[in-house]
């Protein structure tokens, strides 16, 4: 069966869309975006409400009141396919369904969570939590196989879904068990970075809005956390995922990380956590000297970012309040007075100059009480306070915490939560991440240009992620995702999974060393 669209969910007058994945470009398919548009404007208020109610706390506390502006600004530098099709304010149910049918990489998501090809409890006992279009939140869903998973997602057509832990039993059976019998046994170690936590130090945007300038905060956070996880903790399989609006998630998938109990997770979160306390707590970074190797390494990573992002791009200290805050973080009173006098006389002095003033005034030796090493330490603390990753550590501490799945659509922005290659983190631009409407448009555009590709109804299996069984190059039919700008992201995800599976297989062989008579594949845990 190519699609799992049941008549109830899909109005009959749209039956022509049922053949959507396979339809030749001349068919009704191109009309989809327009339909979307009209519908979306009608549903605008409703969707805004949905957005409000649906929000996960990591990303959407503030409904995107200014989202349209951002979209206009970003659509300017978008490619032709996109700008020809106007953006709907919100993703409606049909677009969502088409996305799941044609683009969502179910198969790879399954392989990623299953740690192998043969369905195992790693996937079967995994909790999924679905947020339905009518705002209902369904927890404790689980699926035995990738196909069942896909079938159910198409049936429910959730606006998004989240991934929880693997339990010791099937989460759907929880009611048949006595209380407290169902226990989480493993989950990826996750981290959450969100730009709202940077609101006091970013001057360009606030709340739900982002731009290239403030995204750099996420980039530097990714660098620091990624390096620490690899070098200090020895983890290798770290998947970074764009959260769809203004943050990023990390999924550490090494077996050793997945099996960590909560107290070990807390230990890692504590190890990485540095900036504590709210805006009222005064100096928030007070490190002991000598600096811990993790801190001195992070400082080295962050120094250039401080010079560029904080001092130039954000020009953080240009306002007098921020300059006051900076002074409050410096240790020497005499020096502070001199600096304050100087800055008051030239109110528009840039952050870079102000930062340089600290050293130049210190060198003049006006202050007799000044201790150079204390000043250096304070300056290091300031660099860290303004650049060190601000993690939402509660997310990392608990195995049972649910986190939005990669590749789902962010309901507010319509953007796909794509993986980010941490090695090329600087090149990632959140504003050029494809939106769902754009992707569907790209498929249509591609099919219009290459009409030979989409022929018979049965030739295409709606699922974009289906691995291609046919190895005959010529007859190989393109997956829908390959026709779109989603391709590089799915390819990266595939290579990530390949690396993970390779290690899993190695590990399993080791474990089964002394039981050679048992087939390795069927002995998965």
């Amino acid at each position: 069966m190519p699609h799992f669209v049941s008549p109830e969910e899909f109005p009959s007058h749209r039956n022509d869309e049922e053949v959507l994945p396979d339809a030749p470009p001349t068919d009704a398919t191109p009309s989809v975006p327009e339909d979307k548009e009209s519908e979306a404007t009608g549903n605008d208020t409703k969707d805004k409400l949905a957005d409000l109610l649906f929000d996960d706390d990591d990303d959407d506390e503030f409904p995107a009141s200014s989202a349209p502006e951002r979209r206009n600004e970003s659509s300017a530098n978008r490619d032709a396919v996109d700008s020809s099709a106007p953006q709907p304010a919100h993703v409606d149910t049909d677009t969502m369904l088409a996305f799941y049918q044609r683009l969502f990489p179910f198969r790879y998501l399954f392989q990623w969570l299953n740690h192998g090809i043969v369905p195992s409890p790693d996937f079967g006992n995994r909790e999924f939590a679905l947020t339905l279009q009518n705002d209902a939140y369904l927890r404790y869903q689980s699926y035995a196989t990738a196909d069942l998973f896909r079938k159910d997602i198409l049936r429910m057509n959730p606006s998004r879904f989240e991934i929880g832990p693997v339990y010791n039993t099937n989460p759907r059976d929880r009611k048949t068990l006595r209380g407290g019998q169902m226990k989480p046994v493993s989950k990826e170690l996750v981290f959450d970075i969100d730009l709202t936590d940077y609101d006091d130090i970013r001057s360009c945007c606030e709340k739900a809005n982002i731009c290239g300038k403030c995204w750099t905060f996420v980039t530097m956070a990714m660098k620091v956390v990624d390096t620490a996880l690899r070098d200090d903790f020895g983890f290798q399989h770290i998947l970074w995922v764009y959260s769809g609006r203004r943050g990023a998630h990390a999924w550490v998938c090494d077996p050793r990380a997945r099996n960590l109990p909560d107290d070990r997770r807390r230990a890692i979160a504590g190890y990485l956590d540095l900036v504590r306390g709210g805006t009222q707590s005064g100096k928030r970074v007070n490190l002991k000297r000598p600096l811990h190797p993790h801190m001195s390494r992070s400082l080295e990573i962050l120094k250039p970012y401080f010079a560029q992002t904080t001092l130039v791009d954000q020009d953080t200290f240009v306002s007098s309040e921020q300059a006051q805050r900076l002074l409050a973080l410096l240790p020497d009173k005499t020096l502070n007075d001199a600096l304050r006098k100087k800055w008051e006389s030239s109110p528009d002095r840039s952050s870079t100059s102000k930062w340089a003033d600290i050293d130049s005034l210190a060198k003049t030796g006006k202050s007799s009480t000044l201790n150079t090493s204390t000043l250096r330490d304070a300056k290091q603390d300031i660099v860290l306070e303004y650049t060190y990753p601000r993690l939402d550590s509660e997310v990392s501490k608990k195995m049972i915490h649910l986190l939005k799945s990669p590749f789902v659509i962010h309901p507010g922005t319509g953007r796909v939560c794509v993986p980010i290659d941490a090695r090329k983190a600087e090149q990632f631009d959140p504003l050029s991440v494809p939106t769902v409407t754009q992707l569907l448009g790209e498929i249509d555009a591609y099919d219009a240009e290459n009409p030979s590709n989409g022929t018979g109804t049965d030739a295409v299996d709606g699922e974009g992620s289906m691995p291609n069984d046919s190895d005959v190059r010529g007859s190989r039919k393109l997956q829908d995702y390959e026709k779109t700008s989603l391709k590089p992201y799915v390819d990266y995800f595939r290579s990530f999974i390949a690396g993970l599976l390779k290690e899993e297989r190695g590990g399993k062989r080791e474990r089964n060393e002394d039981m050679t008579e048992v087939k390795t594949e069927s002995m998965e845990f």
Partner: protein
Amino acid sequence: MIRQDFHKVDPKRRATLDHKKKQFAAPVYKQQDYPHRLNFYDVPPTAEITLEQFEQWAIDRLRILAEIEACSYRNKSPAETEAHITPLLQKYLPLSSNTSSSLGAADQRLKNERQKDHYSHFILRLAFSATEDLRRRFARAETMLFRFRFQKDDSREKRAFIESLNLDWEPISDEERRELSEHLVNATPGLRRVDEESWYKVDWERVPELVERRSVFLYRGKAYVPGREQLSMIIAEFTARLERSLELTSRALPRLDEDDRLTPILNHLSKNFGSAESVYSEGEGFVDGAPITANNIDQLSQHFPLCMRNLHMSLRKNNHLKHYGRLQYTLFLKGIGLSLEECIVFWRQSFKGFTDDEFNSRYKYNIRHAYGDVGGDVNRRGRGYPPYSCQKILGDSNPGVGQTHGCPYRHFSVDNLIGLLQSTGISDRELLRGVREDVEKTRYHIACNRVFEWTHKAEIKRVKEDGTWNQTDLDTIVHPNTYFKRSYLLKQVGKAPKKA
């Protein structure tokens, strides 16, 4: 897969049985010899002992554990604890080192001591595995006992013992140490030179506290731990293993095929694991005949310990308390005998500026929950939570902004504490100086008791002279409700004319 591996044999069983004859054979156990003074209690005892020994050994060990627990509740310093425990250990549970005998570990006296230590531990395990609370307390007390003995052990035996544990610690070569010396020094607080220490490489998961505090060097998943952290690592390992096996014991307990000889002894033992104040028995803080109603709380609050007094004053000042403050105070009020109805009246009147609806929807449920009037079956059967002991209040998290719970001696800065004491009418300079000293030494109980003794000195003197109160009645207070009860009773004695 059902496949039994006959090569893997329970370590206590000798693998001499032919599995085909196994069901008819009597199990033969390996006799344990005790090469080390210390014991991780991994292998259960298997020899026979008499019922008298069973009971006597358990009681002896229990006495030690109860004393250790009492010392910790009284916040005694390690040195004080040692002075207190050493003679008791010598008397009830001696455990000599190999060097104390010319024969070494082969000496029968040493063997007997170690056997008693070993067996009594396992007997108490049986007795204390039944409930979560007992398990936790038992593991705590046993860990303290182990730590105490471990520290006293001489270093050679200590090393031999550690080696026997197979803890999978990889020593770091001199070369590697030199290479990493800068990182090691920077990562490890309070360390000047790397050569001072011997270093071990362990999986970081083994030392989560060090990782969380960022006070250990990590490289590729390995933590580089200095030798002086050895103690805490061994202790952590001991606790972890003990907790795990207690959990297992508790699951096996219902299947203990028992002939009515051991169970009564075990029950009796677990009931007597009480240094009295550690567990608060219901109704203990009630004062018979005292008029305890919502309207009297203001007047009664003069008998409250400082923590509750502080809550009461904040409540009167702000007409509100945050959640943990309410909880701590409600449970205390429950402990002094305030009924649920009166308690609701009390809070209702205290929360001025809230409508009845607001009060009912936001606060009433929690009060009823604390009394066990609502909530799950367990909560209702247990009649809510017990009133907090000093131990609990001291150990709970620090109050945050706007929160008022906790112990003022512990959670206030010294100056604020003195200010608070003065506002309750305590201004004796000598006393305040003593309080300051106690607090600096983190002896919060002593400070609180010092205040109690000062404010009741006339009455205490009187009952002592009378002989109406003996020493145990005036023991150190370790529960806010005991404070209230004793204060109230003493003042009654003070008021009433001397009885014959």
